[in-house]
């Protein structure tokens, strides 16, 4: 079953007097449980495509379906609901809420979903332990390193067990050891929880983990390949 279906997506941006093409008739299908990397140079359209899939940005034309929901037809409120219930986001900058602790940041999405306090507390504790942040639950973002913050962001993205995680350059601000740990975590979550991952990156180490590698340039898909032997978690 397809997790994401994009048909003939087009998106342009105005930059001064110049029109920039973000997406140029892009069509793509991603299966549930897949681990996909979108790669390409800056301005190739990978982030634009990722944002369109997540309902953060609206294409000029074309169709996007996530699960059984037509994303391109939703208004602001229903789009917010869809992101809340179906998608986990991991951004390049860690994007945590600075006034909340690690635990509160992880619980935030569950809180918005209206889940009971006990359930939230239990799950946030488990997930923070899973991403290696046990004992740091009550630290605020400013008291955590970059890698630890990104782990909190990942914990927040997966704590509600979304069907899909969209990650935009998740390793861009991390050192190689932390980046490797993060990718190992992604692969583990993909394998054990069957979460679909779509990662926009131009980091070749990240691409090595992908089951499917899609290359983009100038808003178009220029290659779409399944990788035979992606990197996997050792343990």
């Amino acid at each position, binding site marked *: 079953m397809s997790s994401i279906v994009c048909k003939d997506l087009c998106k342009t941006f105005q930059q001064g007097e110049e029109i920039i093409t973000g997406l140029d008739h892009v069509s793509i299908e991603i299966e549930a449980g897949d681990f996909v990397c979108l790669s390409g140079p800056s301005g190739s359209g990978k982030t634009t495509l990722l944002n369109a899939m997540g309902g953060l940005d609206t294409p000029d034309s074309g169709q996007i379906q996530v699960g059984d929901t037509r994303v391109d037809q939703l208004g602001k*409120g229903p789009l*917010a*609901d869809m*992101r*809340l219930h179906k998608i986990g986001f991991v951004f390049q900058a860690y994007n945590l*809420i600075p006034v*909340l602790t690690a635990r509160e940041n992880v619980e935030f999405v569950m809180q*918005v979903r209206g889940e009971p306090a006990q359930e939230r507390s239990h799950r946030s504790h488990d997930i923070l332990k899973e991403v290696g942040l046990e004992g740091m639950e009550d630290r605020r973002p400013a008291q955590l390193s970059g890698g630890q913050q990104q782990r909190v962001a990942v914990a927040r993205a997966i704590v509600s067990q979304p069907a899909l995680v969209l990650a935009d350059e998740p390793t861009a601000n991390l050192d190689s050891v932390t980046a490797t740990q993060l990718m190992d975590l992604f692969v583990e979550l993909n394998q054990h929880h069957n979460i679909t991952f779509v990662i926009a990156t131009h980091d070749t180490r990240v691409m090595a983990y992908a089951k499917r590698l899609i290359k983009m340039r100038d808003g178009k898909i220029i290659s779409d390949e399944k990788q035979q032997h992606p990197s996997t978690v050792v343990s």
Partner: protein
Amino acid sequence: MSGLPLKAILMLAWRNLWRNHRRTLIMLAAITVGVWAMIFMTALMRGMVDDMLLNGIRGLPGEVQIHHPDYRDDPNVNNSMPAPHDALLSAMRVPEVTAWTSRVRVPAVISSERDSRGVVLLGVEPQSEVKVSFDLETIIEGRFLEDSSDRGLVIGAKMADRLETDLGKRVVVMSQDPDNNIADRGFRIVGVYKAKLASLEETYIYGGRETVQKMLKLGNSVSEVAISGGDYRNVDRWLGGIQQAAGNDVETLPWYEIDTYLGSMLAMMDGFVLVWIIIVFLALSFGLVNTLVMAVFERVREIGLMQALGMRPSTILYQILMESLLLLLIGLALGNAIAVGTIIPLQGGIDISVVAEGMEMMGTSSMLYPALKLNDMILANLIVIILGLLTSILPAWRAASYNPIEALNKT
């Protein structure tokens, strides 16, 4: 529905408020001082106007008066009316009526051996008059009248000066009887009073009601019945019953219709308080909007993140409004506490005798008694809350209408 529970919105709002301690404290200080100024100045103005109105009503006297229908246009002895009948006496026994008196009140001339002056002669029943109008503590020489058949006369200190007369001396009071003949009588001055307003001392002279009725050949008739209810603001609660009992042959009017200047003074004061509170709030609102706009601008990325994670725009709006509400509530609590704390010690009166002459022209005395009214405090608090939230809608709406991607890309 993707809405945060109130508790979570409250927690987020509270923490965001204290992100920038200095800015929040400055804004809190501004709201506190503003609220204090609203309540304190209103209490001073209320005190001044209350004094003005009470002096005016005391001079009328009473909050309700009954007259012959033509008396107010022509206050002569022919426009008198019978003394209160049983139905009216019964109506005046309701709990709201605290005192009443009937008086003869006619224009007259008072003459000493030195000078003559035009005055208003009041024939009063002393026991009931002191409950409605006359303050016994204003007697500075001699005594007040003992009963309605007292043959003495009580005059103001200023009048005694003008007439170059004194306690114990005789004066002649002259007016007209119902047959348009001169009615006059010699009185011995038994008392001299000093009023809060010097002008009253030169206007009113007091004689016993029965003595004055005899002098004017009035029989049992009186010029007016003055009724007091204690609280001049609530006169309408019992006015209807008195009007009904008094009947249509007489004119029964509340104080604000007898003296329309006093009536309009009260209405003007209520309007002035509202305008004053709104003006102070407008000055405050610039700071409030600035604080919230800055708080929103600083957090554009964070707001974009919340939207990206699934928070609805309406929840973002509530959260910003909650920050504003918290700021307003803390400022109001402090402002109210400081206002009460500064007004209560001053309720014994503020001596403004330096400007007493000017104040007297306005009908107020030389002591100013701040009047802290619950209604004024509620009005100030409501205006700050309602207008404060309305003012906060703009920055909150801006925050709620950000595009998540544009907000996340803000540097």
